[in-house]
């Protein structure tokens, strides 16, 4: 039975689950894009607001499946806020396309629910349920503009690879279950210690397969193959969603899983993560150098950024969790902002993805170019942006536990990364300023997306200059 306090604790999840149901009922009666957006935002805002109500009763174990603690609530907050931003951006984008628009929000909120379940999961069953809720919604979201071949390609590619990785994950879970006889993270740690003999040999392959499943969702090298194609084909708001919410939920789970099972004590696992981190940082940045498509550049850059976050995670000193969480928040703001600019610049026929579309943008639409510049500078890690504090934090976490080789790789690869961000920035400011004609005003349907961008930019600078209040919240949130 779930206690009353338990019900309060899962209130954010309940509201997240209720929103799509309400949306479905409304759509059955009356189709209105505006109403669908309004209801979505209402549901998300209510869920966000209920975090404070839930905060009074945490930590709570709600059945064996979920553990709602401050840590989970912080990630809920990140996931919900990011979903609000994505919904705001998607509105103007969908308006330009001749598709059924309202269902988009059902899928979006359902996917957010899946990610939130991951963040609170403390059991293999909720892990798998959350993952599948998230993935299945994403298959459809990726291919939402179904008249486009690239969108269909993205959807199918994601479907096939996600299904394959889910199979790996399930098999891994089964092996671990066979070895230790429990699916709950809490007991697993001690049982793993005690396990001996032939059962112990099952553990390592099991863990490896689970890591494969996680690595796929986080798009870490060598499980990153799908990323550029999916980011390119999916609508830009969905790409932003995959880059943030989907990865954020999985990262939350990874951290909890790691801490609960005390996996730092397993040298092979740490070694595997070290190799993955190095490969992701170098691979992501080097491959991005070859691209001239902004969406693909952002895709590779997101691979590299997950590698940076892993550095703090592997360092696992006292700073690790707060460093990772802050890094992810900074990354959420930045990448949604960058994809937001892509969204606002896109029109019914084409997404703004070639570098050509950005040439001289500053002289035509200075505000939009300014936002893009701020986001790119944050990705490089330049002061006054959230990315700077994030990078500072990651290096600090690494330095506090003397992980010098990882930090050196981080430094070198992020300098390589600066090169392709600069290419985009240069395109923004290229061209003859005086000859460019004055632009038309931003189309009204993008006004909503533009205001999202303004908020994101302010947030980016606030986090870059005075993150102390947020850090205070993060510091109290340790995965249990």
């Amino acid at each position, binding site marked *: 039975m779930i206690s009353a306090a338990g019900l309060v604790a899962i209130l954010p999840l309940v509201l997240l689950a209720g929103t799509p149901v309400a949306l479905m009922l409304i759509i059955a009666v009356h189709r209105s894009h505006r109403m669908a957006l309004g209801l979505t935002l209402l549901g998300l805002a209510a869920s966000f607001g209920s975090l404070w109500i839930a905060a009074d009763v945490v930590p709570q174990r709600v059945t064996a499946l979920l553990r709602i603690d401050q840590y989970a609530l912080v990630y809920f907050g990140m996931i919900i806020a990011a979903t609000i931003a994505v919904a705001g951006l998607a509105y103007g984008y969908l308006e330009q396309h001749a598709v059924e628009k309202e269902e988009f929000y059902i899928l979006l909120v359902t996917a957010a629910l899946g990610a939130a379940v991951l963040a609170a999961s403390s059991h293999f069953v909720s892990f798998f349920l959350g993952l599948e809720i998230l993935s299945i919604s994403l298959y459809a979201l990726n291919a939402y503009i179904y008249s486009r071949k690239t969108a269909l390609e993205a959807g199918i590619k994601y479907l096939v690879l996600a299904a394959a990785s889910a199979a790996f994950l399930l098999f891994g879970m089964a092996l671990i279950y066979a070895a230790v006889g429990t699916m709950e993270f809490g007991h697993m740690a001690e049982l793993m210690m005690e396990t001996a003999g032939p059962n112990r040999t099952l553990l390592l392959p099991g863990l490896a397969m689970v890591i494969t499943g996680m690595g796929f969702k986080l798009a870490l090298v060598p499980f990153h193959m799908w990323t550029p194609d999916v980011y390119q084909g999916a609508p830009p708001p969905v790409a932003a969603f995959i880059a943030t919410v989907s990865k954020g939920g999985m990262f939350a789970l990874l951290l909890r899983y790691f801490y609960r099972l005390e996996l730092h004590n397993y040298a092979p696992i740490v070694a595997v993560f070290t190799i993955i981190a190095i490969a992701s940082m170098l691979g992501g940045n080097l491959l991005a150098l070859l691209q001239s498509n902004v969406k693909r550049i952002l895709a590779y850059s997101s691979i590299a950024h997950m590698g940076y976050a892993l550095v703090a995670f592997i360092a696992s000193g006292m700073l690790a969790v707060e460093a990772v969480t802050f890094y992810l928040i900074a990354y959420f703001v930045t990448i949604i902002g960058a994809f937001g600019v892509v969204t606002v610049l896109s029109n019914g026929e084409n997404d703004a993805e070639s570098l050509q579309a950005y040439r001289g943008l*500053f002289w035509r639409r200075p505000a939009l170019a300014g936002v893009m510049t701020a986001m790119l500078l944050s990705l490089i890690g*330049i002061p*006054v942006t959230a990315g700077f504090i994030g990078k500072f934090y990651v290096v600090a976490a690494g330095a506090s536990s003397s992980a010098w080789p990882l930090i050196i790789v981080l430094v*070198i690869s992020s300098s390589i990364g*600066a*090169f392709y961000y*600069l290419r985009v920035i*240069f395109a923004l400011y290229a061209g003859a*300023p005086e000859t460019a004609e004055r632009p038309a005003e931003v189309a009204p349907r993008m006004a909503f997306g533009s205001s999202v961008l303004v908020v994101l930019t302010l947030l980016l600078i606030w986090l870059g200059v005075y*993150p102390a209040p947020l850090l205070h919240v993060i510091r109290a949130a340790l995965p249990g």
Partner: protein
Amino acid sequence: MILVWFIAILVVGGAACWVVARWSTAVCRWIALAVTAADFILSLALWIRNYPVNLLQQQDWLRQVNWTWFPDAGIHFHLAIDGLSLLLVVLTFFLGIVSVLASWTEIREGVGFFHLNLLWVLAGITGVFLAMDLFLFYFAWELMLIPMYFLIAIWGHERRVYAAVKFFLFTQLSGLLMLISILALYFIHHSATGVYSFEYSDLIGTSMPLHVAIWVMLGFFIAFAVKLPMVPVHTWLPDAHTEAPTAGSVILAGLLLKTGAYGLLRFVVPLFPAAAHWFSPVATILAVIGILYGAVLAFAQTDLKRLVAYTSVSHLGFVLLAIFVGNKLALEGALITIIAHGISTGALFVLVGALQERIHTREMDRMGGLWQTIPRLSGAAMFFAMASIGLPGLGDFVGEFLILLGTYKVSVGLTVAAAIGVLFSTLYGLKFIQRAFHGSNIHHWELHDLFAREVVIVAPMILILLWLGLFPQPVLNTFTVTMDKLQQTASQQYQAYEGGQQ
């Protein structure tokens, strides 16, 4: 509070320029001029009011602000000024005025954004000279990179993108190495004392084994050496200087390079005296190589801006040499060279820029005999070229002379090699004057001589160089206390270390 004003005026002024330029570029230029002039007057007033009594008696800092920023991590918004910072800040604002005036007719496109970047890069540089919290220092250090990148990448010459990206990557990578060192120092300090602090005065005197100190110092050293620039990490400099617009070159040569020298003086030697001592043979030899190499390459150039750029490599080699020789004479010489080089090289870039505006080339082969048509510009160029090669009576001579004297006490060999560098400088200086201005006017140039605006830029620079050359004592007095303190901390630390070894 005045320290915050220094920076705030520039930041707000830059934003105002950008907004106003939509309606009137002239107003934008005047605002930029007023902003830099206001800061210059403020800094000058601060200097005069405290000279010499307060400057000679200052205990800690002349002025400071210290606000808590991230309490848990021990990060403060701590700006402070002493003699060294004061001189560099005055130089910053003076060259700020010069840069604004030098761009008056050169920059015609994107005027508002140009001045925004110009004023913000000055704000970043001021922040670097004033920050006494290592986090804040790194913050400002990285921040000055972006406006400079834009100045080169948008308003530069033919190969601007290449130059801008190269500049950015060199500085970014070396800056990150410094970040690692800052954090390493922070955690070493924490494990020794149990206190988290980025405060300069706390971190001074952090004891650590020599092999650790060497690694941590190298992170700082590389960042500053790239900026300085030291051979062999100087290769970004000729490109960046050559491709930047005039104002960008003035700021690069006059100020950005000086942040490297400042960092070595303020951080590397006092924070890691033993490691710096251990490293000084390598650093001084690299410095001398830089002096010679810069001078020889300057001689080989035909592009005027490139020529001036390589002379910077040579002159800053003297500064590096002085800092690692480390005695009183050498350090005084380093300070004079820092200021005098800022003025003389800045002026040369202004004149080359003025010339380029007139004849649209920087190639010496396309010049010759210009003295006949533009005697005032040519005369001024000759004056600054003479200053640059170390003509007695002008600022650069005093600096290099003191450095050579100081070095002589430590190593005769290094002194001889560095003095050969002075000899080479005569060659490139004379070549510059002879090829461009003397001889007959074979290309039949008919040009407008210096405009009133350009005279206003150049005349004070001539006077300052004469002042530095004939009566540098006020500048040296301003620096004395700071220098004594820097030297004292370094030697105390070093002795403590030696004592610990025995």
